[in-house]
């Protein structure tokens, strides 16, 4: 299983891998916002956390559809499904590798992009922490969509559409936790705890559902 984790990491940084694509997309989305909104620094600082979260959400959806499709196309999925170790463990490891390759760079890039949005240190720190806690949930939810659409030749957009409604709560609680951290009266912990709960919930449900979907798509 560790071998699978490192192989997926290696693949994501090789040609055709998705590791940098997500960060570049994230950067593009956030970098054009100030041009569209205009040079009102207070406004930018106010919408900054929300923009960072939306950018990160869309960037993590990118490339999710290839999670199992690439394995299926070259026949590796057959071999992974035949093993004695449960399929859901392999799915969990693949999600972990996918998040490390595409989700973690987003978290690391977010402070620099926060500067674009004229956010102060507190807001940048809170955004980074909530992204760290929330993006794994998007990967787990996306794994289910990717498994459902594994047999479809152009499943990319379908995966995003399937996944988006489930990812909305992550966005809501992520953004509200950041605002709670920077605006005084609201407490930070309740929305942040719910965000962590969502991640843990999908960390359990996601691999089980994805493994079941993969078994049913076998032909």
């Amino acid at each position, binding site marked *: 299983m560790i071998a699978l984790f490192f192989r997926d990491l*290696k*693949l994501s940084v090789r040609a055709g891998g998705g590791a940098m694509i997500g960060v570049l997309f994230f950067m593009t989305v956030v970098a054009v916002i100030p041009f569209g909104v205009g040079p009102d620094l207070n406004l930018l600082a106010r919408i900054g956390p929300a923009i960072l979260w939306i950018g990160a959400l869309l960037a993590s959806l990118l490339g999710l559809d290839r999670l199992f499709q690439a394995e299926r196309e070259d026949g590796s999925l057959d071999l*992974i499904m035949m093993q004695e170790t449960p399929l859901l463990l392999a799915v969990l490891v693949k999600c972990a590798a996918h998040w490390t390759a595409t989700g973690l760079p987003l978290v690391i890039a977010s402070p620099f992009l926060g500067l674009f949005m004229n956010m102060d240190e507190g807001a940048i720190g809170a955004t980074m922490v909530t992204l760290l806690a929330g993006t794994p949930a998007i990967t787990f939810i996306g794994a289910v969509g990717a498994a459902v659409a594994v047999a479809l030749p152009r499943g990319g957009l379908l995966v995003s559409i399937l996944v988006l409604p489930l990812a909305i709560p992550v966005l809501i609680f992520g953004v509200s936790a950041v605002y709670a951290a920077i605006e005084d009266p609201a407490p930070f912990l309740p929305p942040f705890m719910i965000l962590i709960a969502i991640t843990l919930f999908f960390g359990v449900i996601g691999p089980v559902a994805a493994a079941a979907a993969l078994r049913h798509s076998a032909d």
Partner: protein
Amino acid sequence: MRLMAEGLSARRGEDLIFNDISFALAAGEALVVTGPNGAGKSTLLRVVAGLLEPESGRVRLEGGPWGFEHPRELSHYLGHRNAMKRELTVEENLTFWQRFLGDSPGGSGIDLVEAAEAVGLAEIIHLPFGYLSAGQQRRMAMAKLIVAFRPIWLLDEPTAALDVSADRLFAGLVAAHLDRGGIVVAATHQPLGLAGAKSLEMTGFVH
């Protein structure tokens, strides 16, 4: 150890593609599945490999090692696709499968340099898999069979895209596996040159 298939049938869409197929293979025996295109050879292998649910019947293992429920856990499956990543080098691919698959009880895989030598391509394992020709890719997929030990080999058109010398080389690998008490099920159009192999002719259904 015996690999048993009892009354297997499988469905593709509406139609039964084959019906009531049974065989039993003891250690050291091979089964060659022949038949025209569309007769269900690949489907039969996928059923035996546990990748497709049979419509009826079942596949089971008799006298296998403890703790293995389905023969698929003790099987190598070499399908139409090679299950190797184009972006990784041959060495990285083989190392991954060696570590991921691990050895089944009762044997051990060989070193991957030796395996590459066994398929006659030891000098190109540093190349990305995508740079190799179709025949070389197929040979490397065969090397995967010997880097991790599995007593049962399920081979779907193993010698497609291979030249005559690779054909012979492959027949040698299969014979060596059978000598060690392995079981081989191969679907093929070409003779594999296996002496004493059982054969199963699939006719397909006439509509």
